[in-house]
C-alpha cells in the first residue's frame, strides 16, 4: 500500500518535471542500456527463429508435431493468441477518441505500438505455418474470396497498415498537423477494423462445420471479448514496465481505470465460456464429449488454469484493496496466460475428437503419437509441439518484441504535450 501511494503521489511531480523535456525527447531517440540489451536479445532470437524456420522448410515439416489428424499446432495457436493481443492496444487508444470520452492518459501511442508488434507476429505465425511460403503470391492472384483465410489476410493486412497510419496520425495530431475531427474519424475506422480482425479470425475456426468444438456462432463475439481481455492486460503490463524504467509517467488513476476495465472484460469472457459450455453440453449429444474433454479430460489442466486464473484476475481488479501495482500486473499476467490456455484448448480440442470414430491403418504421418496405437494417441493430448516448433515460435515472438522495442527507441511514444496537460488537471 505504501508503495502505491508513493507512486501515485510521485507521478504528477514527474509529469510536471517531464513536460519541458518532452519536446526535446520527442525528437531524439530514447536511450537506455536495458533497452539496447533487449533489442539485441530479440534480434538474436529472431535470427535463430528464422534459421530454425529455414530448417523446417529445407528439412521438412515432419520435424514438427503436426500430423494429418492434428494438422494445425503451436503456430496457429499463437496466431490466434497474437491476433487477440493486438486488439487491446488499438481498442484502448481508439475507443476514448471515437466516442469522445476521457481516455487513459498518454498511453495511446504505446498501446498502438504494441498492436503493431502483435499484428506483425500474427502474420508471422501464419507464414511459418505454411508448407509452401514461396507460393504466397498466389493469395493475391488466385484469391478465393469465399475463404475465411482470405478474409483474414485482407483484414489483417489492412489492420497493420491502418495501425501504422493511426500511430502516425496521433503523432501528427500532437504537432497540430491533423485535426481533431480527422483523428476521431480515423479512430472509428480503426475500432471497426479491430473488431473485424477478431471476428474474421474466429470465423477461420467457427465456420468449419466439421469440428464440433469450433462450430458455434458465439465464437466471433467470444474472440472479441478474449481479445479485449488479453489486449488490455498486455497494455497494463507494458505501461507498468515503461513506467518502472521511467519511459513514461502516468497517473495511478489511469491504471486503476484499466484494471477495472480488465475485470469487466474477464467477466464477459468467462460468461461467454459458460454459455458455450452449457449449449454444447446440455443436449448431451456429441457436444457433451467436448465439455467432458475440457472439464475432466485431456485438456482439463488448460481449462482450469484459464477459469481459475481469470476468476482471480477479476477478484483483484474489482477489490480496491487489492489493486496495488504488483497485484494488477499479476492479474494481467494471469489473464494473458488464461487466454493462451483458452487458445490451446480451442486448437487441440478441435482435433481431439475425431468425427469418424473408426480405426484404420496408422502411419508416421497419421497422428502425432502414432506408435502408441489409436487408443493411446487420443488418450492424452492428441498434439504436442516439438522443440523445433517452440524455437520457431520464440523467434516470431522475439520479432514482435524487436518491433516494439525499436518503436520505443526511435519513435516518440511518450505522452504528448496536450494529453500531458490534461492529465495534470
Amino acid at each position, binding site marked *: 500500500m505504501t508503495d502505491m501511494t508513493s507512486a501515485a503521489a510521485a507521478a504528477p511531480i514527474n509529469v510536471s518535471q517531464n513536460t519541458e523535456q518532452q519536446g526535446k525527447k520527442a525528437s531524439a531517440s530514447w536511450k537506455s542500456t536495458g533497452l539496447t540489451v533487449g533489442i539485441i536479445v530479440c534480434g538474436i532470437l529472431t535470427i535463430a527463429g528464422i534459421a530454425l524456420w529455414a530448417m523446417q522448410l529445407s528439412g*521438412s515439416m515432419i520435424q514438427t508435431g503436426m500430423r494429418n*489428424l492434428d494438422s494445425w499446432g503451436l503456430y496457429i495457436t499463437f496466431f490466434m493468441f497474437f491476433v487477440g493481443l493486438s486488439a487491446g492496444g488499438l481498442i484502448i487508444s481508439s475507443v476514448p477518441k471515437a466516442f469522445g470520452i476521457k481516455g487513459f492518459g498518454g498511453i495511446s501511442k504505446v498501446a498502438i505500438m504494441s498492436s503493431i508488434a502483435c499484428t506483425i507476429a500474427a502474420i508471422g505465425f501464419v507464414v511459418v505455418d505454411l*508448407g509452401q511460403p514461396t507460393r504466397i503470391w498466389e493469395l493475391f492472384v488466385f484469391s478465393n474470396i469465399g*475463404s475465411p483465410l482470405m478474409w483474414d489476410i485482407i483484414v489483417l493486412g489492412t489492420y497493420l497498415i491502418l495501425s501504422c497510419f493511426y500511430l502516425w496520425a496521433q503523432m501528427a495530431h500532437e504537432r497540430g498537423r491533423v485535426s481533431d475531427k480527422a483523428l476521431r474519424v480515423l479512430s472509428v475506422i480503426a475500432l471497426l477494423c479491430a473488431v473485424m480482425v477478431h471476428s474474421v479470425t474466429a470465423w477461420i475456426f467457427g465456420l468449419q462445420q466439421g469440428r464440433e468444438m469450433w462450430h458455434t456462432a458465439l465464437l466471433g463475439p467470444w474472440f472479441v471479448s478474449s481479445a479485449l481481455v488479453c489486449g488490455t492486460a498486455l497494455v497494463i503490463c507494458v505501461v507498468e514496465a515503461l513506467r518502472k524504467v521511467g519511459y513514461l509517467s502516468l497517473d495511478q488513476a489511469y491504471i486503476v481505470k484499466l484494471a477495472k476495465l480488465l475485470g469487466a472484460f474477464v467477466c464477459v469472457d468467462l460468461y461467454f465460456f459458460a454459455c458455450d459450455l452449457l449449449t454444447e453440453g446440455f443436449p448431451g449429444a456429441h457436444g457433451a464429449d467436448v465439455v467432458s474433454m475440457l472439464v475432466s479430460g485431456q485438456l482439463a489442466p488448460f481449462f482450469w488454469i484459464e477459469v481459475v486464473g481469470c476468476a482471480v484476475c477479476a477478484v483483484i481488479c474489482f477489490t480496491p484493496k487489492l489493486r496495488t501495482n504488483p497485484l494488477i500486473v499479476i492479474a494481467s499476467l494471469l489473464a494473458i496466460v488464461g487466454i493462451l490456455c483458452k487458445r490451446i484448448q480451442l486448437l487441440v480440442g478441435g482435433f481431439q475428437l475425431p468425427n469418424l470414430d473408426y*480405426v484404420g*491403418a*496408422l502411419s508416421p504421418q497419421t497422428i502425432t503419437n502414432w506408435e502408441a496405437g489409436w*487408443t493411446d494417441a487420443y488418450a492424452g493430448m492428441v498434439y504436442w509441439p516439438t522443440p523445433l516448433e517452440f524455437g520457431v515460435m520464440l523467434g516470431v515472438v522475439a520479432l514482435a518484441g524487436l518491433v516494439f522495442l525499436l518503436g520505443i527507441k526511435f519513435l516518440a511514444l511518450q505522452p504528448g504535450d496536450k494529453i500531458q496537460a490534461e492529465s495534470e488537471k
Partner: protein
Amino acid sequence: MNYGFVIDQERCIGCHTCAVACKIENNLPDVVWWNRILTDGGAEMDIPAGEFPNTTIEYVPVNCQHCENPACTKVCPVGATYKDEETGIVHQDADKCIGCRMCMSACPYTGVRSFNWDEPTHVLDMNIGGVDAPEHQKHTVEKCTMCSHRVAKGEEPACVEACPARARFWGDLDDPNSEVSQIIKKRSFKQLLADEGTKPSVYYVG
C-alpha cells in the same frame, strides 16, 4: 453429371485391395493412403466390437466423399481444391496448394486428406501406376482424385476395378439408369456424417 460411389458393405471382405490398387495407380508415397478400410468398435484396426462370442465387425472403406457441397473447397484461399461442376469430382491441384491446411480442418471426414509432411518417398525407385497420375509434392495436401486421369479416358477408378468382392460401384448419380442410381433406389443406404450437410457422393449399402 455427378459421379459417385456405392459401396456394398455386405460384400466387402476387408481385404484392402482397393486401398492398394489406389496406392499403385496413383504412385502414392510410402506413408500416404487416399483410400483406407476402417473398422469400428475395436481399439485397433481389424479388432471386432463386442464380447466374444457376440462380436461384430463393420468394414468402412473411406476415401474422399467428393461431396456435392464440399466443406474443403470453400475454405481454400487459392482454389487449389475445387469442384468440377461437369463431373462432380473434387480436384486437388498440388502445383497450386500453399500448404495452409485449411481444407484439412474443414473436411469433416477425418483423415481423407493427407499432407506430405516429409519429402515423398517410394519403396520402388521408379514411378508406378498411371502415367498421367498426379505428381506428389512435399508440403502440399493431397487426396483421392476419383482417378480423374482414368475417368477422363473413359475408364473406371482403379479401386472399383480392382475390388475382388465386387463391392465397389462407380457411376453417374444424376443418371437414374446408372448402376449406382439403381442400387440406391432398391436398397437402403447410409452416407457418412450425413448431418454435416456436405452431401457426400459415396453411398454405403448393406
